[in-house]
């Protein structure tokens, strides 16, 4: 364990954001965040628009540095690390608008992250050929089959439908076998049918023991998947607990659901 950690590691906690503040100029986006993600669980972060959910995710993956505080992943301090280093530690992220290689083939999209997993952040391997990497190719094709986009493997990823693009991005993250998967509104803009398919997919991954953090607006998705829910409002975590506890918490009803619910 790293002796220089600002806070002591907690058993079973894979990700710990401690005393995180983030100011954008005069605006306080995150305030005194203390978030503990338990290993192997699905942790949902909900909250009204502008509550700071995406900012929190961006702080975790190193996209923006926190103004103060620390994020610790499995005994390693993430604060100050480059995004690619954070990914190499085992954290993958699905973005709100899918970040895929639009002008490259679907198969290529899934193979590239597999190379990052195997070869690390940088390697010049000009003597190898991508198409002789049968193991990685098989794995990629298998995953595409599972996700129902195998028959589109030679098409450009940009030509996929919106739902398929999201599924592709999820496949790109999963082929890295991350320890922690961050999902930023994985079902936004999806039809009910596509949303349900995605929920089923995510439930399947859940059985693999991967830890997941989900930001989501759709309460149907949240309550079907989450083991724990944290509620963000105006940059603060106002409540954390099991779905049942959250449903019944009057502060949550006040801040987020706009009033008591029966």
């Amino acid at each position, binding site marked *: 364990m790293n002796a220089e950690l600002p806070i002591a590691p907690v058993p079973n906690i894979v990700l710990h954001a401690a005393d995180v503040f983030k100011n954008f100029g005069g605006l306080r986006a995150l305030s005194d965040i203390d978030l503990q993600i338990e290993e192997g669980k699905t942790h949902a972060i909900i909250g009204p628009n502008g509550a700071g959910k995406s900012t929190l995710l961006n702080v975790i993956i190193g996209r923006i540095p926190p103004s103060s505080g620390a994020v610790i992943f499995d005994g390693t301090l993430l604060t100050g690390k480059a995004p690619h280093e954070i990914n190499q530690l085992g954290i993958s992220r699905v973005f709100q608008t899918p970040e*895929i290689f639009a002008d490259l083939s679907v198969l290529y999209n899934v193979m590239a992250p597999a190379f990052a997993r195997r070869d690390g952040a*940088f390697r010049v391997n000009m003597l190898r050929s991508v198409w*002789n990497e049968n193991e990685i190719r098989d794995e990629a094709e298998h995953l595409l089959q599972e996700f129902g986009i195998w028959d589109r493997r030679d098409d450009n990823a940009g030509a996929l439908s919106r739902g398929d693009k999201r599924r592709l991005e999820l496949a790109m993250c999963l082929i890295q076998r991350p320890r922690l998967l961050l999902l930023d509104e994985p079902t936004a803009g999806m039809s009910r049918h596509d949303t349900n398919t995605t929920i089923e997919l995510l439930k399947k991954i859940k059985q693999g023991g991967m830890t997941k953090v989900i930001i989501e607006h759709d309460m149907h998705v949240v309550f079907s998947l989450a083991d724990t829910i944290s509620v963000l409002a105006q940059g603060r975590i106002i409540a954390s607990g099991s779905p049942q506890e959250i449903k019944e918490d009057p502060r949550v009803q006040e801040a987020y659901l706009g009033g008591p619910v029966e």
Partner: protein
Amino acid sequence: MLSLSRKDVIKLAVLAAIVLTMPIWLAPFGAAYPGLMQKFVIYAIFAVGFNILFGLTGYLSFGHAAFLGVGSYTAVWSFKLLTMDIIPAMIFAIIFSGLFALVIGYFCLRRSGIYFSILTLAFAQMSYSLAYSVLTPITNGETGLLVARSDPRVIDGLLGADGMANGLPTPSLLGVSLSGYAGFYICAAFLIAAFFVSQKVFASPFGMALRGIKSNPTRMIYTGFNTKPYMLTAFVISGMFAGLAGGLLAVTDPIAGAERMKWTESGNVVLMTILGGVGTLFGPVVGAWLIKYFENIFSAINVNVLNDFFAVLPDGLQAVMVTILSKFTGEGWHLTLGLVFVLIVVFLPGGLVEGAERLIRRLRRSGRTAVKKKVVQQ
């Protein structure tokens, strides 16, 4: 390790066949003399290397001629100080241009897009000016760096060879003088090797990562790739190709001048790559040949040649044709090239090679539907 996919082997074989038979098929175009064919082949190497950077990563360098120039100067210095044999000269040309690219790339790659292009242009123009002014002891300024009978040529001296042919030092390969066709075939061999290397880069996981950076750098970073060293490596590799091309230019004519580093040369290689097809294997080769052909043959078509060509026409018509066409040939070859360039960029955004591929695909498809129709009729 050195294996290629079957498709790539075919492409390499096709390229080798086309390059080695140049003296035959270029003859009807009036371009089958060794000096010009050497230029065709050398600039193809330059463009193939440029395409590794521009085609795979999308970073548009406007200063690649600087590496060409460094390669030329290094080769000539190797001729002067060590030996007239080209092996050390080429090795040093590649190493020095690679080191030069490492330094320039390190700074330029801190920015992307137009700022990257401007930075490379600035560095190249700086090198060009330095070669004319401060660095005159190394570059011999405006006169250009020449080999002389009195050069030390240490290795030649030790081996007892004088490196001379016809009373002047001449580049050679293991004792064989490289004038005329021998020089062309050596350059051709280098092009085939360069094409092979570029195929390996395109097919490797390294090349895949470069494509990924071009397609979506954000996704690359959050997928765990450290994009900076990838970019720098691509920049250095393409600088080395340019250095090799520059070195070979010094083989065909053992003189190195600063004009090789001028921005118009950097612009030319951009045109070659775009004209032929960015990101395709053959594109830069085709583009380089087309531009060099225009530059050397089209520019030589003068009024007299046109008059002869249209002699069959009635006098008035002949005069009209010659007047119009003479604006596009000879001195006006730049105009023709510009028009061709505009037409290709507007109507064939992928360049000539992609245009050809599209045509082949369409022909195949129509062939297939024709077969289907027949089957249906039966």
